[in-house]
């Protein structure tokens, strides 16, 4: 049942597999799902694993369960207005709205009904009776005639399906879902005459007796209009938007471990003092102190836009981890010295850099583009010396990767220092490679 669900959500970039279905079934069994809004809430808590999943998840949900496709950059409001589902729902429910024909208000109402959850409704009544009355095969017209006053009253409450078996529930839901997506019905089966049950018309609540809260519809709207709820483009060159993603990637440089080791000298020392009673003294392995050396090319116009963002990135990192971070500057390429200030006045020789602990992680950031004569023998020797001394060394290049092979100097330097694009993904890759070397 719902075998296509994981694949559908995956196609929106939301990780989902057969376990999703199992959990979903379990949720039905536990009586968590009585309305369409419940499906949204429950699947959200199962599938969404990051705040940036919320956007894609909501879009996938609307497509899968309501057949409302939200185009890139389109607001939920517009997508609903455009959809066949909404049109059908409007026609079916005409009598309920009275004179109220304001489209915006109707969309609000539609959203409200879609997102009404069990939690919004107070009264619970016997679902089995409703269930037997309702037939998912019914045409809309038939039901409208059927729906007498008594039943309408009943619909204002919530049905309790706990007496029904999981198989029955799933089967009915599947059937209704298929009709929902079918061309003919255009989508008024879930959200029929105000009933918003995943099990068909007889479903759950009519308008529902609200017990407060702002309604999930409002939140869904907010989610789809805010970039925060969509994944950042990790392939894009570093900018203000993805600097946090880059930071997350950079954090990987520090491989924290915590383990207890037997402190042998301590044990012997204390044991002797105790007169021969040796009790193992344990020592907490302290995580390796991370030291980073940053070499930034801040000469030339081509690098200007990146210097600031790169420094923001590493400064942010420094505030989170108390460790050594040293920054040096160079112009175009590294000869026999680098500079400790951004104006490049105070120089420091490569040899003194090379006297530092080889455990330093070295990031060289530059576009590596220059006239070929600039990349002299001295410069090449410097790179060779750096990579031999510092085992963890990588070059981050703000130039998009696809242009790399047009520039001769990039080609050369790439052979000397492992090079990665200056994007969150590139940084992540660089960090992973660096950690591989022990």
């Amino acid at each position, binding site marked *: 049942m719902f075998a296509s669900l994981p694949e559908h959500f995956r196609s929106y970039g939301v990780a989902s597999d057969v376990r999703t279905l199992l959990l979903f079934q379990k949720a039905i069994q536990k009586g968590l799902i009585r309305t369409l809004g419940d499906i949204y809430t429950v699947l959200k*808590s199962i599938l969404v694993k990051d705040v940036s999943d919320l956007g894609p998840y909501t879009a996938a949900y609307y497509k899968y369960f309501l057949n409302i496709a939200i185009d890139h950059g389109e607001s939920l409001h517009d997508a609903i207005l455009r959809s066949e589902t909404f049109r059908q729902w409007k026609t079916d429910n005409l009598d309920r709205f009275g004179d109220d024909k304001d489209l915006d208000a109707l969309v609000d109402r539609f959203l409200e009904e879609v997102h009404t959850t069990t939690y919004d409704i107070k009264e619970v009544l016997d679902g089995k009776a409703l269930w037997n009355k309702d037939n998912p095969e019914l045409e809309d017209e038939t039901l409208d005639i059927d729906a007498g006053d008594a039943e309408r009253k009943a619909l204002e409450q919530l049905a309790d399906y706990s007496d029904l078996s999981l198989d029955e529930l799933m089967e009915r839901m599947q059937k209704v879902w298929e009709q929902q997506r079918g061309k003919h019905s255009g989508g008024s089966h879930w959200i029929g005459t105000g009933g918003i049950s995943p099990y068909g018309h007889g479903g759950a609540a009519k308008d529902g007796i609200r017990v407060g809260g702002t309604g999930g519809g409002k939140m869904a709207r907010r989610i789809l209009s805010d970039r925060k709820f969509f994944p950042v483009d990790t392939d894009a060159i570093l900018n203000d938007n993805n600097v946090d993603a880059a930071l997350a990637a950079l954090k990987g440089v520090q491989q924290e471990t915590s383990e207890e080791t037997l402190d042998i000298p301590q044990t012997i020392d204390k044991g002797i003092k105790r007169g021969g009673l040796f009790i193992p003294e344990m020592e907490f392995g302290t995580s390796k102190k991370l030291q980073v050396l940053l070499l930034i090319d801040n000469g030339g116009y081509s690098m200007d836009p990146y210097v600031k963002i790169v420094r923001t990135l590493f400064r942010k990192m420094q505030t989170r981890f108390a460790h050594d971070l040293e920054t040096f500057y160079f112009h175009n390429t590294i000869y026999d010295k680098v500079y400790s200030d951004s104006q490049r006045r105070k120089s420091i020789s490569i040899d003194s850099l090379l006297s530092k602990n080889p455990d330093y992680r070295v990031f060289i950031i530059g576009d590596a583009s220059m006239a070929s004569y600039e990349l002299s023998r001295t410069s090449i020797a410097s790179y060779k010396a750096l990579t031999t001394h510092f085992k963890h060394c990588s070059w981050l290049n703000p130039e998009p990767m696809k242009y790399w092979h047009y520039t001769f100097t990039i080609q050369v330097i790439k052979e000397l220092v492992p090079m990665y694009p200056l994007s969150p993904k590139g940084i992540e890759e660089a960090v992973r490679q660096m950690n591989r070397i022990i």
Partner: protein
Amino acid sequence: MAKKEIWTGSDEYLCDRELAQAFHIARTLGMPLLIEGEPGTGKTELPLQYAKEQGLELFVYPTGSKSTVEQFVAKFDHVKYLRDSQIEILNAQRAEKGVQSALSTGGRNTESLADYVNKGPAALAYSTPNSVLLIDEIDKAPREFPNDLLYALSHRQFIMPESGEVITCSEEEMPAIVITSNREQELPTAFKGRCIYHYIHFPDADTMREIVAKHHPQIDNSIVDAALDIFYHLRRIGLERSPTTRELLNWLKYVRTFSSQEAIQKIEQLDGIGTLVKTQSDLEKIQKALFKDGEDFAKRSTSN
């Protein structure tokens, strides 16, 4: 199933609708609830207040950079074991020499290894039905920590070291587990997969008013209005570190000590802004944004 119904907060804690739902889903499915969100939005408070109001037993494990699964689950006390076994030898020697008094092992028996297992919060929570277990700030833990928990979370059981005792609990009696994270490092996918995830959105002004009312029930409305006005303004101008709920509450705690007229005046002058804004560059930014006429604001804020 007694403790599975929805919980929407207490007199002291406002649990927003979505959080309440996620918490309910997590408890019903017997899965841990992983909460992320801006600092100071009440992530840690949820299980504390829930346990308090429902009268449930609470176990807390604050995670740190040196956290290990042994501390969390259980640890075998080798030192005590060694001591006791030596005491046994001593006692035997004493008995041989005819000394009557024996040294005590405090009721522990070296034959039963379980006597030497120090149970951590996890083992205790799993052996107490319907308890509450909080794992605070799991993102501060070393990377192995969440990975080591995978088995326990999906099979609801822990195996005690050395003694081999298995602590397990049924789905019905599963403790309500709440895990909080500040996203300082990404949690492993496999770990997240075993949790119900919830992201706490920053409360809007109306919700914030309710939160304030829970914490400072006696406070004058006009004070709250003035404070919220400035608070949300500060959040809008894009500070490096936006002020949080916790900090707003602290600020109000400070101005509350004055009469209401005085308090409003203090709020408008950004008196005690140090509770809200924590970096120098942010202070400068605020000065630029709010006091274009070059009032000597920085001086005043530092004098407090």
